[in-house]
């Protein structure tokens, strides 16, 4: 009987499994959507890119609906359908207007119009993912919807934006107007992202903004077209890869910052990769002529480069060791390899650029390396100053304790010497910038002012569109007004049509 019961139970379980198959959780379903989506972006087909972004958007929606607070998370990531829609439009345009692919000599008359629409659609999709449009710019401020890897998840989106704009570059770089607009937006994004990374206290948030800045700089290189696409890809991989590795590392106990050697290695690696990424852009935008845009672009990119270098050198500090018994780690870990890889790839990519025809003038080359050096130098100087101040305070606290005043040692150490800041955890979630409160406040305020202005303009446009289209909605409610519309339309038709000659 027991055997029969067991067999019967198994059969029942089997039947139940067939009738109601197990449903994968939100995490797995999202991953199953997101990973193929990211892979599709690297294919040359626009349809594949559109499907890829649609899958990524669906993955974010799937994670958001399963989040603890779906009412907040779902609207937050709903904008991801916009870039997907733009790419679907571009793909469809290529299908219905074959002349866009330069294979036929037909449709000459309207070809320019569709080429512009195509370029704008692809640029829109990529730039919005890169946080370069005013519609969804601040998304990197907040963590993603999936609980397990929330702080890391938004870093996927600028990477997707880069993939779209890099892979589909022939579609948007061939239209001069679109290219110029993209250049302005990318420079602005790089500066804003660097400012935000500089102003944020939380290290993971800073890293997310650095990723945005890296991607914007890489796409700027695509836009400027002074180096080969392969070189741009290598430079982007080195810079973006370093920052995203650090971001992922923060979720694994700040592994890349454990120990003096590792933190130093990563400081060097991120400094070199970021400088290598921005150097060709700075060289290309060096104001050799009297062009106004270039004259504005060079200092803007220079500021972004300087701030990025400052953060890379100033904020990567050794994570405090909390274990009483040290675990025997291998001498070379993935963190070591990651940092070394960046240190190798970036110079090799620059060498590749120089070999393949990128020959800057000595003046431009030297001037373009200055912002990164200035940022790194300022970071080192401020770190040294902060260390000296901390040492002095410890000394003062010890003396006070010795005199019996009983000052609390924790207060004496402070956070990077800035007493005005509230205390934060020492576990790597927030690290000192060593930049002074005033500078960080300035960065925060600048970013907020720009974003608020953008949002106001967007909101005004949306309200106007809403006001214009609301009569249409009112007249389609299913009641008698619809039929009034019908009669009015009919009368107008009868009166106006004879006048069409």
């Amino acid at each position, binding site marked *: 009987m027991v055997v029969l019961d067991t067999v019967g139970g198994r059969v029942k379980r089997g039947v139940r499994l067939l009738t109601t198959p197990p449903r994968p959780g939100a995490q797995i379903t999202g991953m199953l959507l997101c990973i193929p989506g990211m892979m599709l972006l690297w294919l040359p087909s626009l349809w594949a890119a559109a499907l890829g972004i649609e899958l990524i958007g669906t993955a974010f929606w799937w994670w958001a*609906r399963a989040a603890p607070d779906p009412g907040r998370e*779902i609207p937050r990531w709903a904008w991801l359908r916009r870039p997907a829609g733009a790419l679907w*439009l571009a793909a*469809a345009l290529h299908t219905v*207007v074959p002349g866009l692919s330069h294979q036929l000599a037909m*449709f000459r008359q309207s070809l320019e119009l569709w080429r512009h*629409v195509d370029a704008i659609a692809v640029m829109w999709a990529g730039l919005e993912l890169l946080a370069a449009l005013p519609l969804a710019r601040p998304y990197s401020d907040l963590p993603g919807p999936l609980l397990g890897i929330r702080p890391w998840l938004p870093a996927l989106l600028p990477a997707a934006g880069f993939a779209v704009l890099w892979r589909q570059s022939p579609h948007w770089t061939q239209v001069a107007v679109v290219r110029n607009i993209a250049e302005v937006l990318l420079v602005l994004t790089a500066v804003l992202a660097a400012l935000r990374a500089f102003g944020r206290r939380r290290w993971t948030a800073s890293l997310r903004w650095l990723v945005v800045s890296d991607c914007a700089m890489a796409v700027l290189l695509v836009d400027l077209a002074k180096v080969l696409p392969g070189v741009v890809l290598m430079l982007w991989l080195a810079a973006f890869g370093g920052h995203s590795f650090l971001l992922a590392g923060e979720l694994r106990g700040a592994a890349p910052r454990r120990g003096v050697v590792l933190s130093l290695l990563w400081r060097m690696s991120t400094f070199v990769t970021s400088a290598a990424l921005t150097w060709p852009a700075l060289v290309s935008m060096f104001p050799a002529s009297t062009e106004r845009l270039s004259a504005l672009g060079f200092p803007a990119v220079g500021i972004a480069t300087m701030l990025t270098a400052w953060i890379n050198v100033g904020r990567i500090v050794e994570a405090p060791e909390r274990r009483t018994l040290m675990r025997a780690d291998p001498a070379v870990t993935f963190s070591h390899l990651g940092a070394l890889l960046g240190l190798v790839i970036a110079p090799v990519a620059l060498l590749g650029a120089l070999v393949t025809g990128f020959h800057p003038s000595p003046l431009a080359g030297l001037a373009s390396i200055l912002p990164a050096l200035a940022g790194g130098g300022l970071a080192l100087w401020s770190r040294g100053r902060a260390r000296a101040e901390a040492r002095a305070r410890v000394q003062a606290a010890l003396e006070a304790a010795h005199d019996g005043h009983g000052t609390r040692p924790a207060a004496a150490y402070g956070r990077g010497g800035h007493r005005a800041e509230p205390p934060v955890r020492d576990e790597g979630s927030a690290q000192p910038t060593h930049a002074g409160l005033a500078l960080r406040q300035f960065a925060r305020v600048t970013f907020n002012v720009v974003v608020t202005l953008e949002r106001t303009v967007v909101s005004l446009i949306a309200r106007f569109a809403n006001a214009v289209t609301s009569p249409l909605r009112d007249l*389609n409610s299913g009641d008698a007004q619809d039929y009034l519309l019908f*009669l009015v339309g009919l009368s107008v038709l009868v009166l106006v*049509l004879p006048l069409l000659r």
Partner: protein
Amino acid sequence: MSLSAIVTPVVGSFGTALVPTAVALAVALLLFLLERRQDPQAATVAPFAALPPLAGVVVAPARATFVLVPLVVGLAVAMMARNRRDLLHSECGLKLLWVLGPALALSWAGMELLTLSTGTSVFAEQWAVLQLGLEPRFLWSTALPLSLLTGVVLLGAAPFHFWMADLFHGARAWLAPLTAAAFQVMGAMWLARRLTGIEAFPAGAEITGPMLAIASAVAFIAGAATLLGQRRPERRVGTLASLHGGLMLAALAAAHGREDFVDASRAMMGPWATHLALAYTGASILARFLPVAPGLAAPGATLFRRHPITALVGALPLLSLAGVPGTPGALVWLDTASTLAATGHPGVLAALAVAWLAAFATAIQQLREGFGIPAQGQPPERPTPWAARGALWIAALGLAAMGAAWLGRGFAG
């Protein structure tokens, strides 16, 4: 006999007009029987007899003559008004009568004016007489657009799109899809017949060509704006249907004035009509199981929670109506767009692009609302009838087979 030897002809048969329409009719019968089962008092099956004529119009559009139009409209209105206890149904019938009655009257007035002024009721002869320039321009330039009015109204293209949403919202699920498809086919045929041979009268072609182009552009823009504002799933399906009316208007505008106008418009009309019959059938069933504007973070609909695979499969007709790539409907949208691009109608093409994006976004939003957020606790107790689920599967599989058949032999045959 291998499996492919059986499957290939079966799938291929979905490339014809007859088989998909027969499938739509079978689905309607299934829904009709389900309704009879839920309402034993109304045990008669006589109302179903109204559907074969409607399906016949879809299968053979060329036979939809001017005389047939008021008969079919009258039949549909009578079907909706026959049950006096069903207020929504009766109201829908009255609205249809209110819209289509004046449109038919105005069109007939226009046609009679043309007959009076030219002395003949044969269209080809009318163009030849008008080409002589003996008639006052004001007379024929008023009569000609009036004679086309019924075609535009029957297509459900904006600004005459509201009746379509009312039909899908108010009429029964077994009646609305075939009625809408038959009306639109009759509208397209009305226009095609009325404009046949107009290239022999260039002054008339100069009026009707831009009129069709403007009407289709307005249909796309107003339809898109309306679609984004709709909250009820049934009305969304209705507005998508009105966009398909706009597609046919655009196709006619693109073919207008060409010598092969008749052949070109009929080549497009066949697949367009059969797609409408199946897609409307599936989408209108699904719409009954979708939540009404629940917000972004509300629990999903019962169908989506209890039978997610059926819901996903059943969403194919809705996605196809919206022209989501990979569905048969996308071929209809893209083919029309290609024709517009090839014939130099950039304005209409731009309007079509806007409408397509709006339709695509609405379909995806509708699906997301259907899935909603995971509901905590037990699944809902109320089941989804097996007949409705079966109907969803049949409509979706039929549509998939149609898509495969089109891909196999080329879209327009």
